[in-house]
């Protein structure tokens, strides 16, 4: 039985935890005594979570059905939201923001599945309904956040009010959907994320570029006009015009789109108009109100229609979930990084005009890259060996993903530390891209920071990275291809990628190493870039306990290696040597010396 109000109400809950926090940030910053960068995390974390958790969302709905899954996600948003409003201290507020983001990320990716299950005949309109909820939720929460805080005396009451409203929405969702048939697991088969589908990658590209434009405009338009001499209030009103104009088209055009015209037609018309308005902001900034209204009308159409695409292309709800998960997962990650990059362009060029231009040419370049990608993904279809090879890379990337989060956070702290150590912006990034070894890089940055000589820093770093020579030798026979290729692939060897690629009963899977190492390389370098650009978020990784993730990872990987007496002896000896040397030698030596325990295996 179709139930429009339920999906509208679910949409209402999806934005206040992000959008409603924005206007409160100055108050939160004062109260908790935190820097701009740390306060910025309150906005960045949920958006990143919307990317990260969209990927596993299909599994959730497969298991429990969209009714239960969405109710649970909304409950997470509300529950963690209340806790976040109540917890003292900045670390707690930021840690609980991850919980809120978890619910948001899952819920947003589940909505297309809910649409497919309930409104398969009118997908665009049904999508428009919950997107209207999302937009109204944004508008209301951004407008009410400050008044509530002023009236109640603290920003905490605003967050609490939004979260309590979300808890009420959980009850409403549950009651409104009570007539639905219970979910039957048996009917649903396992559906993988469509990594090899050219179509899915094209959706990723469309959603990613839309997210870039949308978040880019929202983050920087007010700043750009304040720079031109507008007042804060007037620049904010410009954004309000953009978002209110979006409300107008959100429902009407999708309603029309279910009846006549192809999706292609609507996309062509509205994305061209959006490009015109972006060019307008850059070329004729005087026409700001017109450009804001046009951009709003266009994004109002684009968002629901893009969200409908997975519903269009998926045959079964499970397919829809998988495609939507991939589209939102990668798309939001792009969208979360875009404002940061645009900010960097602004810092580098000194003007926002290049920004709008860069935005457009960047989009064209992204689309070009996409086409190449799609072509490549289409080719080896049906090749069984090819599939298992790819599965191996993915296995590596998946196994290491949680450590990828920690590694991103540590790269961020490295960027910050390197910056404060006077290494500038370029050198730390180059170092992450070439050295690609956390401990060695930290050693260099901290020694330079303490005023140490180059020689001391270099020797320390070399001792720390020396272990990669024996490790490289131990896995050398797994590498394939010409020498230059082996040289490049070998750069992806780090402790974590090597350790997950070890097989239980001896032996080594090079593809797992490359998948895991590739992911870590990306998180490490991008984390460094963010750390260098954003500045002083230092200490966060530790307060979130991420430093404890590494020994736990290595322990979990060590245990399956202990298959016999000799392995156990080597582990005990290696650990003992390392422990004994920690007080007496520079960092790095204990690991290399511990590695020498492998000589127990020497035979003539």
């Amino acid at each position: 039985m179709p139930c429009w109000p339920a999906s509208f109400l679910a949409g209402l809950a999806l934005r206040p935890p992000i959008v409603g926090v924005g206007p409160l940030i100055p108050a939160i910053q004062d109260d908790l005594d935190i820097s701009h960068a740390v306060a910025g995390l309150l906005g960045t974390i949920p958006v990143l979570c919307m990317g990260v958790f969209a990927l596993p969302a299909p599994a959730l709905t497969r298991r429990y059905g969209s009714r239960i899954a969405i109710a649970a996600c909304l409950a997470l948003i509300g529950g963690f939201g209340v806790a976040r409003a109540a917890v003292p201290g900045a670390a707690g507020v930021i840690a609980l923001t991850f919980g809120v983001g978890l619910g948001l990320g899952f819920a947003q990716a589940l909505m297309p599945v809910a649409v497919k299950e309930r409104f398969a005949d009118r997908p665009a309109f049904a999508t428009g309904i919950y997107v209207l909820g999302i937009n109204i939720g944004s508008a209301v929460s951004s407008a009410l956040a400050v008044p509530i805080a002023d009236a109640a005396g603290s920003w905490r009451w605003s967050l609490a009010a939004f979260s309590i409203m979300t808890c009420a929405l959980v009850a409403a969702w549950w009651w409104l959907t009570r007539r639905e048939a219970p979910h039957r697991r048996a009917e649903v088969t396992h559906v993988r994320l469509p990594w090899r589908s050219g179509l899915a990658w094209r959706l990723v590209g469309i959603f990613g570029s839309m997210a870039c434009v949308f978040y880019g405009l929202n983050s920087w338009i007010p700043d750009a006009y304040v720079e031109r001499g507008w007042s804060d209030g007037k620049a904010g009103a410009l954004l309000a015009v953009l978002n209110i104009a979006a409300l107008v088209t959100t429902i009407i055009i999708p309603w029309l789109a279910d009846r006549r015209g192809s999706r292609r037609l609507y996309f062509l018309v509205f994305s061209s108009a959006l490009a015109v308005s972006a060019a307008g902001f850059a070329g004729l900034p005087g026409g700001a109100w017109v450009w804001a209204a046009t951009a709003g009308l266009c994004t109002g159409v684009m968002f629901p229609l893009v969200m409908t695409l997975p519903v269009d292309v998926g045959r079964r709800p499970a397919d829809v979930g998988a495609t939507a998960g991939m589209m939102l997962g990668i798309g939001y990650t792009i969208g979360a990084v875009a404002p940061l990059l645009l900010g960097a362009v602004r810092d580098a060029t000194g003007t926002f005009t290049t920004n709008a231009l860069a935005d457009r040419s960047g989009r064209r370049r992204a689309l070009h890259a996409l086409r190449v990608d799609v072509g490549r993904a289409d080719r080896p279809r049906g090749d069984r060996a090819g599939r298992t090879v790819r599965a191996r890379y993915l296995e590596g990337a998946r196994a290491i993903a949680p450590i990828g989060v920690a590694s991103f956070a540590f790269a961020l702290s490295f960027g910050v530390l390197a910056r404060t150590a006077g290494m500038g912006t370029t050198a730390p990034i180059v170092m992450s891209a070439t050295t690609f070894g956390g401990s060695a890089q930290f050693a260099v940055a901290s020694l330079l920071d303490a005023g140490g000589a180059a020689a001391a820093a270099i020797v320390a770093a070399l001792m720390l990275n020396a272990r990669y020579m024996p490790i490289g030798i131990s896995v050398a026979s797994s590498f394939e291809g010409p020498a230059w290729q082996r040289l490049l692939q070998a750069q992806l060897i780090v402790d974590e990628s090597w350790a997950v690629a070890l097989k239980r009963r001896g032996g080594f899977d090079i593809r797992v190493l490359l998948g895991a190492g590739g992911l870590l390389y990306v998180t490490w370098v991008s984390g460094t870039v963010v750390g260098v650009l954003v500045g002083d978020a230092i200490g966060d990784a530790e307060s979130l306990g991420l430093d404890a993730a590494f020994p736990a990872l290595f322990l979990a990987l060590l245990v399956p290696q202990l298959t016999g007496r000799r392995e156990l002896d080597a582990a005990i000896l290696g650990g003992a040597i390392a422990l004994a040397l920690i007080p007496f030698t520079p960092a790095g030596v204990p690991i290399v010396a511990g590695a020498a325990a492998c000589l127990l295996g020497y035979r003539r």
Partner: protein
Amino acid sequence: MSTVWLCVVVVGAASILFKATGPVLLGRRELPTWLAGPVGLLAPAVLAALVVTQSVAGDRQIVADPRLAGLAVGAVAVALRATLLVVIVVAATTAALIRLAL
């Protein structure tokens, strides 16, 4: 060349060489037998050394901080045959909660 860039270039080049030595020079050749024994035990030895240094190493001293508690809870999870994700998350959460409480 400034001190910073000297460090970046030398450490970067050395790291690339360290990592590439085995894969580039040895290639697909099987390891000689005298080397195969030690190499087979390299994984448990290095992993154990990493567990120790990552959990208790401070600046030239052995320290007991929330990392150790995180590792202990992680070890319980390993003993209960939890997945890698669970092990990592419980370890990090434990350390974070202890820091929050202190």
